[in-house]
């Protein structure tokens, strides 16, 4: 299977679907934007794809809480489809709102007896924020999407991106299995100490998390917004890189099926 097919799932309010499709195509994949209603009508549609991506935006307005309504829709109607998708060894990526949906739907982290083990909640300063951040990949992570990547510089743009685990046990267990895949750091790679390096107050500077298999990743930063060097906020000062830092994530996903 040379060219994997990517399902870019969109719902009312999704708004990064075009550039996310473009990112997978730049990386060599073949991507379709598919409305959630098509998947609800025909869940078996998912079986035609190798990668499922929930892009950024404000699904259902982020009304009630970010990603909550789409997440509940998936819980109510697509739970089996999603678990089958994972069980088939396929890849799932949630970017920003997609991360919020993957967390709240129980797809990224299974619920336990006390319910959802973690969430993404309001930024500490209580506002929406658009800002570029430095990121470091956890070398212990099994995450497929982040293989071979050490550091990245990417933009975040969200109001509810503060990653929080329910309790210490959950934190320790996820930490031990390398599931905290991506952390906010300072420009020199050292651990972020509060705002703005950690833009939302996330616990332990967590910017992205994966499932135990490493095949499902959710992250708050937007890799699809940094594919080519002109998207860097300081290219006029620092010159042009060969490619944007975000492209590698999409390439890793596509090459997984090569």
């Amino acid at each position, binding site marked *: 299977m040379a060219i994997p097919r990517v399902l870019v799932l969109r719902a009312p309010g999704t*708004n990064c679907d075009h550039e996310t499709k*473009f990112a997978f195509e730049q990386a060599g994949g073949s991507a379709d934007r598919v409305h959630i*209603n098509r998947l609800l009508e025909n869940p078996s549609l998912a079986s035609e794809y190798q990668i499922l991506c929930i892009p950024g935006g*404000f699904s259902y307005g*982020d*009304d009630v809480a970010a990603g909550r*309504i789409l997440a509940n829709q998936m819980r109510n109607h697509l739970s089996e489809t999603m678990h089958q998708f994972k069980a088939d060894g396929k890849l799932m990526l949630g970017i920003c709102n997609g991360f919020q949906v993957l967390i709240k739907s129980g797809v990224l982290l299974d619920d336990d007896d006390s319910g959802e083990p973690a969430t993404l909640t309001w930024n500490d300063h209580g506002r929406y924020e658009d*800002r570029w951040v430095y990121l470091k990949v956890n070398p212990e992570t099994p995450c497929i999407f982040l293989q071979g990547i050490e550091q990245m510089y990417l*933009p975040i743009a969200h109001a509810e991106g503060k990653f929080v*685990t329910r309790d210490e046990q959950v934190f320790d267990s996820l930490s031990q299995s390398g599931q905290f895949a991506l952390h906010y750091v300072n420009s020199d790679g050292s651990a972020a100490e509060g705002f703005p390096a950690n833009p939302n107050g996330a616990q332990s500077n967590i910017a992205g998390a994966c499932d135990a298999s490493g095949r499902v990743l959710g992250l708050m930063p937007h890799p699809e917004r940094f594919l080519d060097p002109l998207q860097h906020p300081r290219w006029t000062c620092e010159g042009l890189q060969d490619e944007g830092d975000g492209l590698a994530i999409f390439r890793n996903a596509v090459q997984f099926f090569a």
Partner: protein
Amino acid sequence: MTLWEVDIYAGDGHPDREGISLTADARDLGLSGTADIASVRSYLLDGDVSAEQASSIAETLLADKVVEHTVVAPVGDIQLAQSPIDGATSIHVMPKAGVMDPVAASAKQAMADAGVAIDEVRTMRKYWVTGLEPNDLSTLAGKLLANDSIEQVVVGPLEMDRLQVGSPYTYELITVPIRSLDDDALMKLSSEGQLYLTLVEMQTIKTHFEELGRDPTDIELESVAQTWSEHCSHKTLAGRIAYRDENGEQRFENMLKETIFDATVQIRERLGEDDWCVSVFKDNAGIVRFDDDYNVVFKVETHNHPSALEPYGGANTGIGGVIRDPLGTGLGAKPICNTDVFCFADPSTSHENLPPGVLHPRRVMNGVVSGVRDYGNRMGIPTVNGAVYFDDRYLGNPLVYCGNVGLIPRDKSFKEVMAGDLGVAIGGRTGRDGIHGATFSSAELTSESETLSGGAVQIGNAITEKMVLDVLLEARDQGLYTAVTDCGAGGFSSAVGEMGEDLGVVVWLEKAPLKYDGLSYTEVWISEAQERMVFSVPERNWETFRELCESEGVEATVIGQFEDTGRLHLTYHGETVGDISMEFLHDGRPPIVRDAHFDAGDIQPLDVVDDAGFSDDLLAILGSLNVASKEWVIRQYDHEVQAGSVIKPLVGVENDGPGDASVVRPVLGSNQALAISCGMNPHFGDYDPYHMAASAIDEALRNCVAVGADPSRIAILDNFCWGYTDRPETLGSLVRAALACKDVAISMGTPFISGKDSLNNEFSFFDDSGEKQTISIPPTLLISAMGQVPDAAKCVTMDLKSAGNAIYLVGKTSEELGGSHWSLVRGLSGGQVPRMDTSVAKPTFEAMYKAITSSVVRACHDLSEGGLAVAAAEMAFSGGLGIALDLSAVRLSGDVTVGGEYTVKLFSESNTRFLVEVPEDKASEFEACFEGLTLSRIGSVTNDGVCKIVDGETTLIESEITALKEAWQKPLRW
């Protein structure tokens, strides 16, 4: 049936952010005690639901159990009265019945998806307050917690048992006996009916119906009032004006047509085959050529009066409304970026100094910024350019300009309604919201406006509009319709009336889907409910169109049919309720005839004396509200969604310097780009609106040129916000500005492609002694510019790049300190306001473009508020470097006050100037671009972190960039 209340509290270890911030804000209100406030997010659920179901909804949908906990009980239950703070009183705030509550609508849908049927949901905010006297609670609620134009406040326990909206409507045809009314009665009808028409207009309507031998129905009268409103017809500026100034008298048959439109006509003629305008001043937005496949469109609107009453909702629906303009242009453009420009009074104004009926400027600013944020971000449209201006005359009448740029395939740029096409409404449902918005915007605001016109205030629902956008573009590409327009001011009456203008149309009003029962046929027709678009769909395409909408959950309804009758025919369940000729509706309005004059007066002297305070002046200007960093606003807007952003609004080594213009690439994979900028200078208007307008155009153009836009391909837009134009001197100042627009546009070859005006921006109240006081805004002209950038990789930013590079000053400096920020911070008035010399500006912009595209420029910044000194400081601290300038090489032009030369060199705001950083080895190539123009090499970039400006042996300014940056960032770092 039970009315359940779900209270959601921050969980243990998680802060109650809203409570903390409200507690802090309450200290500024001057109340009797020190309030302590806790906040609760609540929902009211009305339906046949068990306790288990209500709890389950609360835990799985409404609350996030990881960080929150809930209390769920029927309204009135004792559990809901358990305060987290001892001895606190509860205050409940919820949207008034019928006000848009998007979260409630989504929650209801999500509950249905989970199999729980709820009749009605409403969101509520609940506050627990201690430390205040009982009578201060309502002050707190009114000033901080709620806005009673849209919200209902209940202090103490809630006593409700149902959430009910609407009651059945009983049809009754209403006619208005206009033929029997004398002039006084006509005017009474005009104001009490909120028609806001003039006596001559009312008399014209009376005569028309006398000729028909009948009285009009209410809906006919409303249709005429909407169509003839200032908002929809721009009758003042497009009217007959006799204008007089120091150059004599001019008579206009149609002022706008003979000034601004005419400039564009002349430019297009001159360009001949190279004309790159496509459609100007016709459609909902102006259209110009972009590349081989696409055109681009641009529109800027204002939403001032609604934002004065309800800042969040006003700004929210302002941006929502302007986005629908490109959507409704041609066959629909894809929105690619937003702009926003706001004018407020000083946010540190004391509460005691507020006139009655005025919201505090800090609250206005907060509300406006979040209103634009929540709509623009949800639409997935980057907000890339803007400005915020402060002047105390915006106290009762803030200004909110919102703009949108769209991308449209070249072959989709025109529309034509065909007879037989169905009139189809899609998107939001029709409710009682926004009734009389179009006519209300023509009225002066008073301290009573809130009670009179509260219905004109609305809240938007961005996701409904995003869904409309998604299906519209799909239907456009499938060729399913022949025309589209947005429902803006005037609602269906304007949208359908406009679409049917050349043909005729019949509208079946009972077909329009309603939010709730009880709307009369007239309310359906003039409601300005948001997020609606109207299409003309050929009958053969209707089924496909409907299925497409349904597949994405968008409601589409046939509400009428276009027919070749020349009449507007309105029916309700088969009964004719209105039948008027399109000719009378669109051409029957009597021309407005107005006098306008402008008295230029003599230039008052300005005391310009060099003293030792240059560094203090620089710090004061950097810290003045207009110049200070707007990062707090900018970062709340997603400026990078759609992945087209090349030059961001914030630039420099720490991504926080003030960029001149943003650059976006609208087509993924292509480096062809647009530069978006603006220019505005209300302070100059106090001296001479002609020079204000010219300077605003110069500023918009030089901002665009500074990043690398082609000056021969910049399209501009005008937005006039003025005071009461019935006064000849107020209208005169506007005409004078329009004359400048014409002169400058023609000389520069820069076409206006769209524009809009908002008149009567005044606020009246009765002061303590019972005297009527009126505050008129300063004449405020916003010029928005959209420049084309053939290759985004050539763009430059304003931050200094490398020590050792040369610094050049481009352009002539004269003593033009009138209305400058130097005189503002010194508290001085008088002096010559900056003028624009187009014979210099045109070649200067061309030379700048040549230099930038030849890659000899490392940084470029335009000189505006605060002149050279401010530009130098901004370039240095944005680059994290230093700058050393010697101004002895700067030759001043014209007469200069003896002993004031340094002040002029540092702070004069003369137009068409740039500071440019050039590498030493490119210096000669750079200089060659400016042959015959004024260019001075005045210094170099250093790496010592100091901004040092000398003139020969005299040190004028020597400041650390960290101190300059702090002065600039501090005022609005909220």
